[in-house]
C-alpha cells in the first residue's frame, strides 16, 4: 500500500507539525512505511487541539496543511498497534452508514478484515497542484478518459434526504453527495454544465448493483453515497479522505413543549429503539439500552415510519440521516443528549481499486473544496450545518467494517 507518494506527503506534513513523537512500535507488515518515517510528528490529541483552537476561517485556510499533517500522523499510527481497532471484535457487526445493510461486498477477501488506519486514504494524495479545471488531463489518465467521453458518471443514493434524493421524482437528484459529485465533474470539465455529469443509483454493498460491483464494471467513475470508510471496504476499493463525519444520535418525537427531548440512549432501557439491521448502531443500542430495546429495520427510513406508527420509541443512527428524517416529519427531533465520538462514521468518496490516479485526483478536489470554503457552503446549502459543521477529520483508525 505504501508508495513513495506517502513519503512526499509526509514532507509537507512535517512543515506544519509542531510536536515530537517517536514511533514506538514497528509492525512487521508496515516495515516499508516505518523506514520512510521521520521522528518529527505529532499525536492525534495535539492535532485535535489545533483543530479546535483555530477559528472557522483559519481552519479552512490551513486545512490543506493539516490534512497533510494528519496524513503523517496516521502513518505513525500505522506503526503502532491500534487499540481502537483491536477493541472491535473481528467479524463482528458491520459498520453501518445508517442506510441499507452495511456489508462486505462479495468477491473480496474472505475472513475477518485487517485493521487499517488513516494512511489507507491519505496514501492516495495528488502530487503538486491539480490540473486547472477544464484543461487537458494527463494523457492516458482515468480523468482524460472521462474528459474524452464528455461526462462523469457518479454513483449516488436516491433515497437519502439531504444527501442524495429526487424530490420531484423527475430523476434530477440533489443533496450534499450530489453536490460533491458535481464538484468533481467541475474539476474535470471546468464548468457546471449538467451534461457533464450523469447519475447512477448505487445500492450499498449489493453484489451486483453495489458500489464495488459498479465501479469494477466501470458503470460508474466515482461513488458518493454516504459510504462509511471501513477496512473491509478498503480492501476492495479506493476511498478518499473523509468528506463528512457523521455521529450517531437519537431521534425521538418532540416533547410536550414542542422542543427536542433530552433523553439519551441510556434512558431507553425497556423501550424500543430502531436502527438498520446489521448496523453498528443496532449493536450500540443493544449494548447501552439492552438487547430487548434493539429494533431492526430493513431500511433506516423504515424506522421513521415505525416511529410514526408508534411501533418504536426512538431511532438511533447517523445524525446526517436523522437530519433528513427531521426534514420529513416536523414532529420528531434529534435529542439534545451528548453522544460518544467512538462510533463516528467517516464518509468517503469511493473509486475503483485499479484507478489510483482517480483516487488521488478526488483527494485533490476534496482538499481544494475544503480549503476554498466551498465545502462549508455546500454543508449550509444542504441544511447540514446543525450536524458536524467542522471539517471532516481523518481518524487514526478506520472502522473495521
Amino acid at each position, binding site marked *: 500500500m505504501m508508495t513513495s507518494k506517502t513519503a512526499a506527503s509526509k514532507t509537507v506534513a512535517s512543515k506544519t507539525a509542531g510536536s515530537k513523537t517517536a514511533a514506538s512500535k514497528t509492525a512487521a507488515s508496515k516495515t516499508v512505511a516505518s523506514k520512510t518515517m521521520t521522528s518529527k510528528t505529532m499525536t492525534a490529541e495535539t492535532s485535535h487541539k489545533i483543530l479546535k483552537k483555530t477559528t472557522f476561517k483559519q481552519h479552512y485556510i490551513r486545512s490543506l496543511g493539516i490534512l497533510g499533517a494528519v496524513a503523517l500522523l496516521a502513518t505513525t499510527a500505522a506503526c503502532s498497534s491500534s487499540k481502537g481497532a483491536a477493541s472491535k471484535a473481528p467479524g463482528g457487526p458491520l459498520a453501518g452508514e445508517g*442506510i*441499507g445493510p452495511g456489508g462486505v461486498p462479495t468477491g473480496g477477501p474472505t475472513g475477518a478484515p485487517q485493521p487499517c488506519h488513516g494512511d489507507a486514504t491519505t496514501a492516495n494524495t495528488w502530487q503538486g497542484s491539480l490540473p486547472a479545471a477544464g484543461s487537458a488531463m494527463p494523457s492516458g489518465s482515468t480523468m482524460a478518459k472521462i474528459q474524452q467521453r464528455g461526462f462523469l*458518471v457518479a454513483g449516488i*443514493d*436516491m*433515497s*437519502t*434526504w439531504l444527501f442524495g*434524493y*429526487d*424530490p*420531484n*421524482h*423527475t*430523476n434530477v437528484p440533489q443533496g450534499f453527495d450530489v453536490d460533491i459529485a458535481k464538484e468533481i465533474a467541475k474539476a474535470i470539465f471546468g464548468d457546471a454544465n449538467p451534461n457533464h455529469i*450523469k*447519475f*447512477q*443509483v*448505487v*445500492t450499498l454493498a*449489493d453484489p*451486483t*448493483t453495489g458500489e464495488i460491483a459498479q465501479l469494477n464494471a466501470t*458503470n460508474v467513475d466515482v461513488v458518493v453515497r454516504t459510504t462509511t470508510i471501513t477496512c473491509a471496504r478498503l480492501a476492495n476499493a479506493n476511498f478518499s479522505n473523509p468528506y463528512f463525519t457523521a455521529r450517531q444520535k437519537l431521534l425521538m418525537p418532540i416533547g410536550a413543549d414542542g422542543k427536542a427531548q433530552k433523553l439519551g440512549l441510556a434512558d431507553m432501557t425497556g423501550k424500543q429503539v430502531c436502527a438498520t*439491521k446489521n448496523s453498528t448502531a443496532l449493536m450500540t443500542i443493544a449494548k447501552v439500552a439492552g438487547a430487548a430495546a434493539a429494533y431492526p429495520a*430493513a*431500511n433506516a*427510513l*423504515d424506522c*421513521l*415510519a415505525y416511529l410514526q406508527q408508534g411501533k418504536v420509541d426512538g431511532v438511533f443512527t447517523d445524525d446526517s440521516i436523522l437530519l433528513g*428524517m427531521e*426534514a*420529513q*416529519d416536523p414532529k420528531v427531533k434529534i435529542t439534545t443528549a451528548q453522544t460518544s465520538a467512538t462510533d463516528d462514521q467517516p464518509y468517503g468518496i469511493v473509486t475503483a481499486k485499479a484507478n489510483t490516479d482517480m483516487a488521488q485526483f478526488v483527494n485533490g478536489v476534496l482538499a481544494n473544496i475544503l480549503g476554498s470554503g466551498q465545502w462549508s457552503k455546500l454543508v449550509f446549502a444542504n441544511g447540514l450545518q446543525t450536524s458536524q459543521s467542522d471539517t471532516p477529520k481523518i481518524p487514526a483508525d478506520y472502522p473495521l467494517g
Partner: protein
Amino acid sequence: MTATTARSTAPNQPHGQQPHNQQSLGQQPHGQRPQPPTSPTRHGSLTRLRRVRVVLAISALVFGVIGAWTVQMRSDGAHDALKHSGPLTQQATKLYHALSDADASAATLYLHTGPVPTDLLNRYKQDLVDASDALAAVTAEANGAKDSAADLKTIADKLPTYSEDMGYARSISNYGFPLGTRYLILASNLMQGDPAHPEIQPILGAAKNLVDTESRNLVGAEDKSSAFPAVEIVAAVALLAALLFVQAAENRRTRRLLNPGLVAATAALVLSMGWLLAAFAVQGNEVSMAKKQGADQVRILATAQVQSLQARTDEMLTLVGRGTANDKEVDYVTNAELGLGASLHRADAAATDVQSDTLARKAISDEAAWLTAHRKLRADDQQNNYDAAVNSALGEPPNDATTANANFQALQKDLDAAMGHAQVGFQTHSQSASDAVVGAVIGMGVLALAMAGAIVAGLGRRISEYQ
C-alpha cells in the same frame, strides 16, 4: 277340520300367523274357486302370496325412497356446486385478484410523475371496492365456516391498514419525501409478505388460502353430485331379482305365462332405473365438464393472474425503490419467470377446447414478450437510463408494443378472456348438471308408487283366486 289338516300338512308355518289364517278361513266360503292349486294346500299358498305381496310392495316403496334420496343427494351436490361452492370460489378468486391488482395499481401510480392518471387511480379505488364487496360476499356465504374464518379475519383486519398506509405513501410522496416510498413498500409487504418476517401472514396469503379452501369445498360438492349410486343399484337388482323370482314361481304354479301386475311393476322398475342411470350419466358428464372446462381452469388461471400481478408490483417497486428495493427484483424472477411461466403451461395443458387452448398459447407468448421487455427495462435502469426504464414500465409512448406495460396489459387481456371463458364453461355445465336430475326425485316417487300398486293389484288377482 281343514285348519287342522292345513296345520298338519304345513308344520313349518310360524305360529303368529295361525289365528289370522283360521279367522280368514272361517270367513271364506269353501270351494268357491275350483282351480287346482299346485301347492300342497290352498291356505299355505294364500298366506305365502299375501306375505309376498306385502314384502314386494314395501320393497318397491323403499326402493323409491332410496332412489329419491340418491337423486336428492346428487341434486344437492350439483346445487351446492352451482349456487354455493361455485359462487364462493368465484368470490374468493375475485377477492384474490382485486387485492393483487390494487397493489400493482398503487405501485404503478406511485411511479407516475406529474398529474395523477385518473384512470389508474380509479382502478385502484375500484379494486379496493371490489375486494371489500367480495370479502363481504365470501364472509356471508361462508357463514362462519371454520375452515375460512381465520383467513377472512386476517384480510378484514389488515385491509384498512393497507389502504391507510397506501394513502399515506401517496400524500408524503407529494412532498417529494423518500419516506413515501418506504410506506409504499411497507404497505405492499403487508399485502405480498415481508421477506424479513415470513412468519407474518400477508393479506394475499390469506386470500390464497381462501381460494384453496373454497376450491376444495367445490371439489367436495362436485364429488357428492357425481357419487356412484351403489345403494340404489343394489336395491334395484335385489328388487328385480325378487320380482323375477316371484313371477317365475307363479308361472310354474299357475301355468299362466304372465302376471300383468308383476310385469307392469318390473317395467316400472326398469324404467325408473333407466331414468336414474341416464340422468346420472348426463349429470356425471356435465359435472366432469364443469370441472375440466371450468373449475380446474379457473383455478389455474386465477393463480396465473395473481402471479402476473405480483410480478408487476415487483417490477414497479424495484423502479420506485431506486436501488433500495432490489430484493423485489429477486421476487420478480420467482413470480414471473418461474411461477407464472409454469402456471401458463399448466393452463395450456388443461385447455379442453380450441378457444381456451388459443388463449393459453397467446398468454404464453405475451408473457415471454413481457419478460424480454422487463430484462431490457432492468438493463436500462442499471445502465444509467432510468427514464427509459420508467417509460417502458408505464408504456410510453403508448403506441410502442415492445414496452413492458404493453406486454403486461396484453397478458392481462389474455388471462381475463381465458378466465371469462372458463367461468362461462363452469356455469353452463354446472347448470346442465343441476337440470339433469330435476324431476328425477318426483319420477322416482311416482314410479315407486306405481310399482307398489301394480304388485298389489297383480298379486291381488291371484289371492282372490283362492278366496
